[in-house]
């Protein structure tokens, strides 16, 4: 009996201890639950942030793809591309105004994020401005500027019957003032389109000047980008003086110190061609033919250019998007000796004929004479359209290669709603989900829609080459100068 009583008494301390242990354990469980809830939230927030960066990486990849001339489509929702611990795919849609909308969907852990950008591809900072001057742009009396679109046909084909000009489409820009002369009706300057002076500039017009578009100043000045001069071995001086044996430069990349076309002689440049020349001189009575029918031509004059009065320029291809004449010459300081122009000016364009292309002289004054009918775009430190000059700005030139470096331009960036796809809706690790389906995400380098390349280029030894096939098989280090590239 006594032993039984003693046994009952022994349990009371255990109960008290158990209660204490239970309370502490309960607190512990509550703490663990709170902490795990906090951790879950934090993990979700971190995953969302990682998904955001994966989506941004996708946008960058697509952006660079656009700059290479690809569509911008990278992988798809069925087989996305892998990036770090996440996956992404980018959709690209060409919009009506020529821009491209890229939507990148990034997935990482339980995080999901979709971003979109609108990108203007192939925007040339210069050619889209039409006629552009870093300093005051002068339009003299009798000068007519209009615009057209060479992608729709030739100027003559688009000219309204019975009209002397297009009646619109001109674009004139300056970082400073734009001065248009003409107080007498019939002989005053005419601009069939917009005239935009610089942010602090004005459009100063004679009383009889006609401008059909806007004359509002631009919000910010545009810089004149530097010309990238190709590194080529020069073949020295070249004089073309035999009227019966015209010089033909075609399908190559070549450099000379001084190229002189004597009176009566002809120099014919056939594309694809890249010509670097320190001085280009066309003497009176000479002819310079720039034929872009078979491919584009880029001429880079590093020191001076003189197309003297009486010389002739012709462009049989009539395609302003395929010819670029880039003049890297610098305006001399006062008192400097003569350049090729003979009066100290490094750029003298006095030839007659037709010029279809892009004329660019970022460090010099460019005077366009009445004798040279101009189609395309032009930009210079200072632009002067001489009395009676006829200029037609080509809108297609804005999206053509200029020979100047540029990237696609970001127009807009915004967050978009997530796509309604199973991989997105299941808030599970996408890599695990894809593995369950037996899908291996693509490496980024293999995830672009376009995998084949058709490329025309000058190799590092200056020989024109063609390659068609898988991009993975192409050796990019062999490219000296790119002429044209197509992706498929």
């Amino acid at each position, binding site marked *: 009996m006594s032993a039984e009583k003693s046994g009952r008494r022994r349990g009371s301390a255990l109960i008290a201890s158990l209660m204490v242990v239970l309370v502490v354990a309960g607190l512990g469980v509550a703490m663990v639950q*709170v902490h795990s809830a906090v951790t879950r939230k934090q993990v979700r927030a971190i995953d969302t942030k990682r998904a955001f960066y994966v989506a941004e990486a996708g946008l960058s990849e697509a952006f660079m793809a656009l700059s290479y001339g690809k569509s911008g489509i990278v992988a798809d929702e069925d087989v996305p591309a892998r990036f770090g611990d996440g996956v992404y795919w980018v959709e690209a849609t060409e919009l009506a105004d020529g821009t491209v909308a890229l939507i990148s969907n990034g997935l990482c852990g339980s995080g999901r994020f979709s971003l979109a950008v609108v990108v203007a591809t192939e925007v040339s900072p210069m050619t889209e401005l039409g006629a552009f001057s870093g300093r005051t742009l002068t339009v003299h009396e009798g000068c007519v500027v209009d615009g057209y679109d060479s992608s729709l046909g030739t100027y003559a084909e688009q000219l309204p019957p019975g009209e002397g000009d297009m009646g619109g489409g001109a674009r004139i820009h300056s970082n400073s003032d734009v001065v248009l002369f003409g107080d007498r009706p019939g002989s005053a300057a005419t601009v069939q389109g917009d005239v935009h002076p610089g942010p602090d500039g004005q459009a100063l017009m004679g009383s009889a000047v006609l401008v059909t578009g806007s004359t509002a100043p631009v919000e910010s000045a545009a810089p004149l980008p530097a010309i990238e001069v190709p590194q080529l071995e020069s073949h020295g001086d070249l004089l073309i003086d035999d009227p019966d044996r015209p010089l033909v430069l075609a399908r190559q990349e070549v450099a000379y110190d001084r190229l002189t076309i004597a009176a009566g002689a002809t120099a014919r440049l056939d594309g694809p061609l890249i010509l670097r020349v320190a001085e280009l001189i066309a003497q009176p009575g000479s002819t310079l033919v720039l034929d872009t029918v078979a491919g584009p031509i880029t001429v880079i004059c590093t020191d001076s250019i003189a197309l003297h009065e009486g010389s002739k320029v012709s462009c049989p291809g009539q395609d302003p998007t395929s010819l670029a004449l880039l003049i890297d010459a610098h305006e001399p300081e006062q008192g400097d000796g003569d350049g090729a122009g003979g009066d100290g000016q490094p750029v003298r364009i006095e030839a007659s004929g037709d010029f279809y292309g892009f004329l660019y002289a970022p460090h010099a004054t460019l005077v366009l004479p009445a004798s040279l009918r101009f189609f395309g775009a032009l930009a210079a430190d200072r632009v002067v359209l001489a009395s009676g000059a006829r200029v037609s700005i080509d809108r297609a030139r804005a999206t053509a290669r200029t020979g100047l470096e540029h990237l696609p331009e970001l127009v*807009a960036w915004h*967050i978009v709603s997530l796509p309604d796809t199973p991989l997105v809706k299941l808030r599970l690790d996408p890599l695990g989900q894809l593995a369950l389906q037996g899908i291996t995400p693509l490496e980024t380098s293999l995830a672009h829609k376009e995998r084949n390349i058709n490329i025309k280029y000058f190799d590092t030894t200056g020989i024109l080459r063609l390659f068609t096939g898988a991009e993975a098989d192409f050796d990019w280090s062999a490219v000296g100068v790119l002429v044209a590239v197509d992706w498929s």
Partner: protein
Amino acid sequence: MKTTRVPAAARARAGFTILELVIGLVILGLLLANVGMVLRSSTAAFEAGALSGALENQLEQTMDRIELAIMSSDGEDLAPSAPLSASIIDYERCLGVEDGELVLDDPERIELVLGSGQVVWTQNPEAAGERRVVWTRWVPEYLELELPNGADDNDNGVIDEGGLAFDLDGKQVSIRLTLEREDERSTRYARTRESRVTCRN
């Protein structure tokens, strides 16, 4: 068989001596005190952990919201203009492009409301259709370690900045935010985050 009988007097004496009771009570007291201390410290640790976690979460969430809002905005339309530092920012979020033109959402504002210590997001501020949402509370008047004394106490290059501070530098915005709470024992918990974002538009 012989049985031993316990005398009645001896049965009456059965139990604890006073010494045993004292020792037992002392041990019990020590045990209870220990348990109490464990409970107190674990409760304090629990509260501190929960408070810090909540504060961290709130801070992360608010900063993420602010960062995304500013990233989506047009850098040229931000107000106040650089290089001012302020506890308020006005911006317009980009919605995309239509006919080649940037489409912007209604004007929005993120501000620190002094007194209530709230970060408030407002759509159409001071205009018809104004909409206000409190993104977080517990924002002190000044950033952590900063005092209103005309000096840069927290050594971050800004003087007397608020608990929410925007510092504009071109299209880049530095965002600083402190959240601060007190528990029942008047212990202060403060968390600060700083980030720099670039307006994408």
